């Protein structure tokens, strides 16, 4: 296993220490329980947006903490959902009296732990709501499974709801907007290589030199199917088609296109794929009005990419454009 680490069992705490040192004015980080919070939290009278999940997907979620996005993030162990007391601690730190929205990716572990946390927090008298995001169209037959996973759409949701909260929206509005994003966002990913979980020490699966895994999650869970490695045009089509089939993206739809690296895929390839995706969308008469390109929700060193499409309206577009100041996303502030 090739990693720059000291000890697989302390890797998250060790990384949080470095993250705190790297962003002194922006973040306030506690280690036990592990919470990454805005340095200026709690912000009085503002709805607090709290998320979290397993580590290994950086910059998600800690890199999205800051004005205009998350108030706090709870990093679990690598690929392991955080625990309820982490979430409770985060909420306690950032609650500004206007209620708290929990953003939860749809995995059994995340849902159960956040559910328990929400009960604990509600018992403390805090108005807490939960929105579960499940944008991964790779999962079919959701009634026969744990349901679709939360993937790339999470980043967009956190940005948009974070902007609303920052501008003074109340908890009902934040919850409504979060559900609007969930209803209008779809994603799909592929992997060329597998990630290696530090405490496991070997790749999560094995792909031959000429294979790729289509419909991959962000935890090294195998995907929909294993296919022969294809060229970039075919890969982008394999990601876009199921997204477009799923949501009624119509001609003239306005969308945000998010082209994401799973970590190990270099920016050169990512821009290349992004260009293909924009061309294919244009051919179908879909208007790309906003875009995000980069490694924003990753799976350790896994090579691969995902595409996320969000149907925009004026409200969502304005919230996307609003200022944000976090470690990983920053504009207008």
């Amino acid at each position, binding site marked *: 296993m090739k990693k720059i680490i000291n000890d697989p069992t302390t890797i998250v705490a060790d990384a949080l220490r470095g993250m705190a040192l790297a962003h002194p004015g922006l973040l306030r980080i506690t280690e036990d329980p592990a919470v990454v919070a805005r340095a200026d939290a709690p912000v009085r009278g503002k709805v607090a947006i709290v998320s979290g999940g397993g580590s290994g997907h950086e910059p998600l979620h800690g890199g999205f903490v800051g004005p205009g996005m998350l108030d706090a993030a709870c990093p*679990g162990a690598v690929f*392991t959902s955080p*625990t309820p007391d982490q979430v409770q601690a985060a909420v306690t730190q950032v609650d500004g009296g206007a209620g708290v929205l929990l953003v939860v990716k749809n995995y059994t572990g995340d849902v*159960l732990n956040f559910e*328990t946390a929400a009960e604990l927090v509600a018992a403390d008298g805090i108005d807490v709501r939960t929105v579960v995001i499940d944008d991964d169209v790779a999962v079919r037959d959701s009634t026969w*499974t*744990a349901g679709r996973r939360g993937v790339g759409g999470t980043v967009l949701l956190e940005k948009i709801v974070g902007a609303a909260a920052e501008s003074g929206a109340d908890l009902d509005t934040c919850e409504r907007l979060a559900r609007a994003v969930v209803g209008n966002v779809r994603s799909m990913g592929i992997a060329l290589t597998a990630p290696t979980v530090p*405490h496991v020490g070997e790749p*999560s699966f094995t792909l031959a030199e000429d294979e790729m895994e289509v419909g991959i999650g962000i935890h*090294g869970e195998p995907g929909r199917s294993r296919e022969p490695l294809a060229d970039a045009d075919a890969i982008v089509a394999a990601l876009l088609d199921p997204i477009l089939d799923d949501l009624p993206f119509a001609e003239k739809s306005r969308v945000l296109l998010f082209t994401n690296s799973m970590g190990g895929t270099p920016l050169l390839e990512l821009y290349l794929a992004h260009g293909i995706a924009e061309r294919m969308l244009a051919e179908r008469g879909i208007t790309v009005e906003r875009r995000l390109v980069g490694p924003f929700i990753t799976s350790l060193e896994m090579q691969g990419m995902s595409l996320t499409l969000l149907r925009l309206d004026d409200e969502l577009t304005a919230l996307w454009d609003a200022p944000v100041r976090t470690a990983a996303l920053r504009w207008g502030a």
Partner: protein
Amino acid sequence: MGCDAGAVAAAIREAAAVITEHRDELVRLDQAIGDGDHGENLKRGFGFVVARLDESTPDTPAAVLKLVATTLISKVGGAAGPLYGTAFLRAATALGDGPELTPELISTALRAAVDGVVARGKAEVGDKTMVDALVPAAKAQGSTVGEVLRAAADAAEAGAESTVPLVARKGRASYLGERSAGHLDPGARSSALLLRSFADST
């Protein structure tokens, strides 16, 4: 040997040792159809349980199980953390605050624990989860604590084995669809390991 708080604490320590011993096996099972953390997460959680028992041993069996429950909930994460946490919490509540376990209490606690897991995770038998090991185990009866637990462990082991051919419909393995068949479910395996360890401790 009686079945007081001390004995229960000893059984929990023994279970922690068994989990540690089987950590790699559970990691491998979870890697095949999940994300590979089940063994590490449980090992970490039970490590904290033992550390807390070292600080102070609670004075009733229920209090011991409550300590296990809150520790697992706050330290394990993932799907298994809240599910096992709920199981131990419900069992603790079912035990009441008597100083000793009886066969009847064990049966009741087992049922309560398993009902809790089902309520929480909403999985049914056949979904290829720990529920496949736990539901049969919850039917265990016997005239001694040891008998009940041995019956539960036997049933859990058979239930765990029964997950091999199944297609998962809950948890992370469900994303695999047909590809999940042919693998033992890690949570069912850890449930069987825990119950066998409890049986062996009496």
